[in-house]
């Protein structure tokens, strides 16, 4: 017997696959929103006596996501700030707009590059680690065992990751922006007669309420979405350890796609 899909014309097959992808996308959004709802409900039902333990786990998450990522963020931010300014200088020096370089760099870094870089670093380090750990927990039945033994896995595992990630992403964005701008200033200082005070003045002119709002909203959205998306893929692991790497890869790719999409949409809302 010939499977029905083989007999279908190619446009129908393409449409069918496209439809399946859309359905899977909506299912993913549903799974992520459900996890977020569980986390928020858990935060609201948090008992005062559980706070010290929760803070302990959250602190560990922040140490891993933010503190341990500082060397990598420092290096990449410095290089990105420096190379971006080099490119800007190369492209704009013929137009006599060198005095605006600091402002252009500041807008570029604070509005787009900083949050994007932090998002990529957090996904590649913490998002994949979270997905691996959660998938392992799910596969070995630890989540169920925790729950029936009086430890709510949402409150103990998910909520600290959510809170830790939001805090870490915000802190890292501020750190990366600062380092990237300093890296840019260093290159500018090598090529142009620019003083640090003039650089700071230009920065002050470039950073307005919209830049601060963008930093805040991107930190909240990226910091919330990365642990939720990664966990949602990880919790779908059911039977075999071979599902684990697949889930981690999907978690990283899914988070990255959401990061790019949400960053673009947010920029459109704030700046256009």
């Amino acid at each position, binding site marked *: 017997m010939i499977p029905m899909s083989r007999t279908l014309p190619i446009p129908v097959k393409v449409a069918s696959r496209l439809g399946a992808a859309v359905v899977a996308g909506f299912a993913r959004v549903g799974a992520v929103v459900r996890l977020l709802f569980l986390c928020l409900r858990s935060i609201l039902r948090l008992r005062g006596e559980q706070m010290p333990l929760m803070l302990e786990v959250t602190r560990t998450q922040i140490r891993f996501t933010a503190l341990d990522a500082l060397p990598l963020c420092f290096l990449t931010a410095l290089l990105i700030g420096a190379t971006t300014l080099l490119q800007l200088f190369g492209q704009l020096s013929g137009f006599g707009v060198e005095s605006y370089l600091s402002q252009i760099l500041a807008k570029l870094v604070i509005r787009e590059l900083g949050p994007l870089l932090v998002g990529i670093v957090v996904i590649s380090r913490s998002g994949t680690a979270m997905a691996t750990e959660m998938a392992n927990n799910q596969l070995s039945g630890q989540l169920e065992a925790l729950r029936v*033994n009086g430890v709510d896995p949402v409150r103990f595992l998910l909520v600290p990751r959510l809170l830790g990630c939001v805090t870490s992403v915000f802190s890292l964005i501020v750190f990366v922006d600062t380092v990237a701008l300093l890296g840019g200033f260093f290159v500018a200082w090598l090529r142009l007669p620019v003083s640090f005070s003039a650089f700071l003045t230009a920065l002050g002119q470039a950073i307005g309420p919209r830049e601060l709002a963008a930093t805040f909203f991107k930190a909240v959205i990226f910091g919330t979405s990365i642990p939720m998306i990664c966990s949602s893929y990880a919790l779908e692991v059911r039977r075999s350890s071979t599902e684990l790497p697949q889930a981690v890869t999907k978690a990283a790719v899914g988070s990255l796609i959401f990061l790019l999409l949400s960053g673009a949409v947010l920029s459109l809302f704030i700046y256009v």
Partner: protein
Amino acid sequence: MSDALLALEGVTLRSPEGHLVFQGLDWRLQRGGRFHLKWVRGGGASAFLRLCCGIAVPEAGRMVLDGVRLTASYAPHPFLERGALGYVPTDGGLAVNMPLLANVALPLRFALNLGREEAQAEARLWLERAGLLDVAHLRPRVPADVQAWLASLARTAAKRPELVLLDRPPGGLDEQVRLAARDLLAQAGADPKVTMILVGGDWLADLGEPMTIIESRVLTGSQP
């Protein structure tokens, strides 16, 4: 009838392999009951314990634990939240990224609201009773071994639960481990109100009335 701690109403359950364990089972577990369910391969004992604590999802029917419906979702359940259930699965169900000490202390801190130092001191005490104090700083082995199962039993005993569900150990037990396990069970069940279902070999037989799962029925003690 009102003193039932756990009630299964019209429950149909299949094992993870797809075998039918129960069909339309109605059963009540009375408070303070102590039962020994002898483990037989494929007999559904582990699936039955997983059902009793809300991990296994029945195809039909419902479970009521301490007067509140028990579901397999993340919905909060007061009996579970206050740490009144002690479940010891065959693989121990310990968090593999935490040392044994932290694993035993975790429910004490989370469910019983003990402070960090107090919970760790209590956990140390119970691990000593289990003969595991010298490995308390180590993480559980993967795949789980008898040590993880015993640590899980120590975790259960430490929080003095109202309902103990003990699954069989992952391998044979030597005399020393059996003694330690029996001591932990005796401590956990010191209060006569504590209810226990113990799955395992004959070494547990004197700790509870015999229980049998046969043809979608749970028979206990002198029941025909």
